[in-house]
């Protein structure tokens, strides 16, 4: 049974951003979503999380039609995401940043405090818990993004270029954390340009180009696909 199913999704911003995209994701999948810049990856993410509405098509999550559901309701169902450019809540300290999503499932401040501590430990920010997000480095801000997404205790986690700018050592460390997350039963969609990471981590890859899905399959198959090659390298 599919965790998330997208049927014939179309979206236009004056120009067609997505055309008839179908996507089916099973629970426990580790999906890599790739494609050149402007191919519609971020639009697709926004449609899954509900930040923008699609013009046409259906989004089904755990057998429930969520096409018309608002973003915050979807996040309470367990769809979490990070942003490509980190968007921490600058007015709150790092720990309080996690309180915002934690409040969806925990009621008491004490429980939130404990859980926030656990998550910050996981991403390695526990010593910065009382600092301001503006004092964090770019990489630490991404870690905060990840922790905030995890605070929703998601069923589906969408990672928008969390690895960009990391050294290869740091990438290995980050992938290690992501594997732990996957093993706890979270399905992951990863948008990434670093092919090494995608190949090493994902069990399935979806390729978008000019708003259309041009390929889908096992990592090793995808890179032998001539259409994908054309999309990346040109004619």
């Amino acid at each position, binding site marked *: 049974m599919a965790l998330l199913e997208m049927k014939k999704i179309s979206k236009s911003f004056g120009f067609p951003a997505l055309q008839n995209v179908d996507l089916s994701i099973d629970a426990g999948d580790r999906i890599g979503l790739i494609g050149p810049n402007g191919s519609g990856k971020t639009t697709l993410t926004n449609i899954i999380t509900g*930040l923008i509405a699609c013009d046409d098509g259906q989004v089904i999550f755990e057998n429930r039609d969520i096409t018309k559901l608002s973003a915050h309701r979807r996040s309470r169902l367990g769809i979490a995401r990070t*942003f490509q450019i980190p968007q*921490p*809540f600058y*007015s709150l300290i790092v720990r309080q940043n996690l309180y*915002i999503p934690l409040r*969806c499932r925990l009621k008491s401040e004490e429980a939130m405090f404990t859980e926030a501590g656990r998550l910050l430990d996981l991403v390695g920010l526990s010593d910065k818990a*009382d600092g301001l997000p503006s004092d964090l480095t770019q990489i630490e801000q991404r870690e905060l993004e990840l922790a*905030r997404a995890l605070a929703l205790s998601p069923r589906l986690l969408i990672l928008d270029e969390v690895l960009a700018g990391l050294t290869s050592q740091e990438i290995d460390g980050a992938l290690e954390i992501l594997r732990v997350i996957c093993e706890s039963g979270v399905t992951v969609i990863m948008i990434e340009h670093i092919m090494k990471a995608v190949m090493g981590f994902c069990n399935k890859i979806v390729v978008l180009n000019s708003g259309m899905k041009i390929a889908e399959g096992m990592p090793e198959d995808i890179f032998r696909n001539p259409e994908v090659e054309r999309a990346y390298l040109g004619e």
Partner: protein
Amino acid sequence: MMKKVSFELIIPGIIVACIGLLIAKLVSGIYFFYVCYAILQMIALAAAWNILGGYTGYVNFGIGGFFAAGAYTSIVLLKYYEVNFLVAILAAGTVSGILGLLIGYLSIRVRGIYFSISTIAVSTILQMVVLNTPFLGGAKGFKIIRPPAFPPFSNYIEFLFLLILLISFFAVAVSRLIEKSWIGRSFLAIKDSEQAAETSGVATLKLKILATVVSCALMGIAGAPYPYFITLLEPYSAMGLTLGTYAFAAVFVGGRGCWFGPIIGAVLLGGLQQSVTVMISSEWNILVVGLVIIAFVLLAPNGVVGLLKGRKKPVLLKKKDRV
């Protein structure tokens, strides 16, 4: 929650009322009450503005409109229907709150300066409606005769002083209550990133509407006793930009997104305005107030509160959030 409300609102409210009564009994100079009225009104408006502008970051420029909506509601009810003052105050809050709902729905589509200018638009259209409605006094406005003073007050202004004292206390207490709860945290999240807040499970639209309704309703409540203070309520002076901009500037002088910022700002700015008016009787007094506002904005970016707390610390922080 009920317990919290009663501890934060009702009991301190009674204490504030007692202090107010005591002041009214002890202080004999009536001028004192007029100055205090002006400053307390500024506190109430600034605190109300802060709920929307300080916490969620939506800047409302139409303060005068919502304030006047309250003032007109109360005078219409008091003059034509002779209702109880308390009823008039509640009705003033309700009408302004409904207008706030309208503004709240505007916030779905626009933000930033666009939102701000739409609030001016709403407030100007209100002014046009008042001008073209004879029932609301039209351009001639309402002349109001204050009722005689009644015990324990020796003068009606003392009663008005107590009223505005309670109203400004209420406005500050409500903003403090919001600030200390998860709602305030969510408001700040909306200010910092509406998208991130929405995907973190915050019902941004509902909360924004809550903020606009509460903020505007408080402005309306602050306007309810105004007709009796000014004794001539007419659209140009009641809805002008002056009242609102001073309240708005007070928040910036004091410090945004913090419940006691508006108090500090209003006392400083209101005090300055009142004293400069009686000390320098010429154009130069506007100049002084203008210069002080600029000096504050340049020297104290986060207001007096920001300076007192130091720049690096967020304004909203509970002790137990720190280890």
